[in-house]
């Protein structure tokens, strides 16, 4: 069993300019080029979208992660910064209050201290206090009953006032501390003051020195220690009432919207985020040591995190710009690559078409050589027979030159000329220079068309059983229908000739390795191994006499070769032959 492959035929591929131009007119190539363009357009869109998404998606996720971390860090930084401001201010206030208490306490230690201080001593006390701090408004001395027995200050009528019912006095008497700072109160003068009172025991009796402090001085202190923009500070008591605050705020409200949690040993400083007048605001608090007041330091979130917002804006704009630049680069690069690939594929397609055309021309050349040799035989007969006639007409040879004898020789010449004509007719079929009209062909339809034609003429009256096994949904083959039908026609005729009395021809189609396979097998005589190599050579025939020209299979092989396909033959003498035509799927179908 041997296999013949049409590709084994040697190709001589000189392609002239005219031939190249001819290929440009090839109808099928235009169709293929459209398919190639469509395919590359789709590929370009997919690649660009895929790469841009492939880059932007992880980039967006990474950016989101870093953005979250960055925001978190900056927010913490703003919180810590505000807490530090609150802590610093709280320490400054505590120091201030301790100094004021110490100022009053020192009066008990002054050399002119007496349990019944006269007016000039009280005036001296006030001068001493103001020497230390100009926020002192007045000073008073209270006897163990809470009655003010000595006074110096702007309100002399306070001399003799009973403070025993004042909350601060009761707190001082009942508490375990020797000093007390009252909440802001109007007292008997209808002006807001703080009272700082210090108690001392003399002869088992409690005596008190009290002084009032101007809240404005405390407010100025708060203002002077504020750090950062848009930072507001205020002092509130445990009930949330403002003690020292910006006058604008106290005018609007007497109480703070925010009351910090009660002081605990491990939590005297903290921070909260809340809306004040619908503005998200950070509020840090710190409980004072010397009095149950809390210091509140507030800053709008937009101001506290302004740096973060700015950084985020820069980061976002940068990322957008980078993404746009990279998308542009991807788009440009992919487009360029795809265009290059498109050009190369189109060139490859053209080259393939040129090769196929050149291959056909080479086959024609091969055929022409065979024709020249084969035509020489009838020409030799014609020449020899005409020589015989000349001899007959030559009196020297004394031959029979009757019209009958000459006609007999002329008949030989006619017969040889007819034989030569048969060859040239076949040659014309191969050499016809017509414009190819390639179109996507359904192989099954072409096979059935040929079969129907043969059944009417060549196969008529023969005892041949035809069996068809046609596979559905075959990919189309881009070819001229008539030459394609000629391939099947010639192989089928050969199969029919191989069957002597009766037999079977089986035609099956299918797809094999990206090619359409058409197998025509017969139960005929089979082909002898020594002939198997020559059956596709022009003018090779085993049919004998003038029955076959020896061109049928040669023409079929040339056409199949032109289409880039192969013909494979399996044959066993006495059992039959199987011709398999493999036609590559040349109708460009992009990968899905």
């Amino acid at each position, binding site marked *: 069993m041997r296999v013949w492959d049409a590709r084994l035929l040697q190709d001589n591929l000189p392609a002239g300019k005219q031939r190249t131009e001819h290929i440009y007119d090839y109808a099928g190539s235009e169709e293929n080029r459209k398919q190639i363009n469509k395919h590359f357009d789709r590929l370009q869109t997919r690649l660009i979208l895929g790469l841009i998404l492939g880059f932007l998606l992880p980039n967006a996720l990474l950016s989101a992660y870093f953005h979250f971390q960055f925001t978190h860090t900056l927010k913490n930084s703003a919180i810590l910064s505000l807490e530090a401001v609150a802590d610093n201010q709280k320490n400054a206030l505590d120091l201030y209050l301790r100094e004021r208490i110490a100022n009053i306490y020192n009066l008990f230690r002054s050399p002119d201290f007496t349990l019944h201080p006269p007016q000039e001593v009280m005036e001296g006390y006030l001068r001493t206090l103001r020497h230390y701090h100009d926020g002192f408004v007045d000073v008073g001395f209270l006897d163990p009953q809470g009655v003010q027995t000595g006074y110096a200050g702007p309100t002399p009528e306070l001399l003799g006032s009973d403070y025993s019912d004042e909350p601060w006095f009761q707190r001082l008497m009942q508490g375990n501390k020797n000093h007390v700072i009252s909440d802001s109160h109007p007292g008997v003068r209808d002006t807001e003051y703080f009272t700082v009172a210090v108690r001392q025991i003399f002869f088992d009796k409690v005596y008190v020195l009290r002084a009032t402090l101007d809240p404005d001085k405390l407010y100025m202190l708060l203002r002077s220690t504020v750090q950062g923009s848009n930072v507001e500070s205020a002092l509130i008591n445990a009930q949330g009432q403002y003690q020292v605050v910006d006058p604008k705020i106290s005018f609007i409200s007497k109480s703070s919207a925010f009351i910090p949690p009660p002081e605990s040993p491990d939590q005297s400083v903290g921070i909260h985020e809340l809306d004040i007048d619908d503005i998200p605001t950070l509020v840090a608090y710190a409980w004072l040591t010397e009095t149950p007041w809390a210091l509140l330091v507030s800053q709008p979130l937009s101001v506290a995190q302004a740096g973060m917002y700015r950084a985020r804006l820069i980061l976002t704009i940068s990322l957008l710009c980078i993404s746009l630049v990279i998308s542009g680069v991807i788009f440009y690069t992919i487009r360029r690559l795809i265009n290059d690939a498109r050009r190369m594929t189109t060139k490859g397609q053209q080259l393939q078409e040129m090769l196929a055309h050149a291959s056909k021309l080479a086959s024609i050349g091969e055929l022409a050589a065979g024709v020249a*040799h084969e035509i020489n*035989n009838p*020409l030799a*007969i014609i*020449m*020899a027979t005409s*020589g*015989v006639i000349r*001899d007959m007409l030559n009196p020297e040879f004394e031959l029979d030159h009757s019209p009958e004898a000459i006609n007999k020789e002329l008949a030989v010449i006619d017969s040889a000329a007819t034989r030569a004509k048969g060859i040239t007719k076949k040659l014309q079929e191969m050499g016809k220079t017509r414009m190819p009209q390639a179109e996507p062909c359904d192989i099954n339809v072409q096979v059935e068309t040929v079969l129907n034609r043969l059944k009417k003429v060549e196969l008529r009256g023969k005892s041949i059983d035809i069996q068809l096994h046609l596979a559905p949904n075959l990919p189309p083959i881009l070819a001229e229908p008539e030459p394609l039908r000629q391939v099947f026609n010639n192989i089928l005729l050969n199969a029919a000739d191989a069957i002597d009395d009766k037999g079977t021809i089986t035609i099956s189609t299918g797809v094999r390795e990206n090619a359409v396979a058409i197998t025509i097998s017969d139960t005929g005589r089979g082909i002898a191994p020594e002939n198997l190599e020559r059956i596709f050579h022009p003018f090779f025939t085993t049919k004998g006499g003038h029955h076959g020209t020896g061109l049928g299979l040669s023409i079929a092989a040339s056409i199949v070769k032109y289409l880039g396909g192969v013909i494979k033959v399996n044959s066993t003498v006495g059992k039959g032959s199987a011709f398999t035509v493999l036609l590559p799927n040349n109708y460009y179908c992009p990968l899905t």
Partner: protein
Amino acid sequence: MEKQTKFKILLVDDEEIFREATARQLRVRGFTVLTADSGETALDLVRTDPPEVVLLDQEMPGMHGSDTFIAIKEIDPLIEVIMLTGNTSVENALELMKLGTFDYLMKPVNIDELLYKVEDAHARKQLNERKQQRDSNSRPDKDSLP
């Protein structure tokens, strides 16, 4: 007119009509013509009825012309062989001339040209025969040597 019998020619060609027409032309010109349709038949005739000159077709089914030529020369080296070729086998015919064919003729064959070559071939054969005869006469007899 009385025909003068000339020498014997063997014409070997598978194409019967050509073979017989050419043979008839040669016969009327006084040659004795033997014909063969294959190399094998030709060799039989060379052995049984050796010709002076052989006209041998190069492209034949079965035994090829070149193989037939070599076999003829093995049987009788003095027989002159003229190859009949087509256009495509000229190169092969030229190669065979290096091996000892007298000449080649391209088909279709002009009878005058054929006669001219055949006569020349025959003349060379006679020359070679005389030369061989002379050589064999001048060669000392082994038995007569002292």
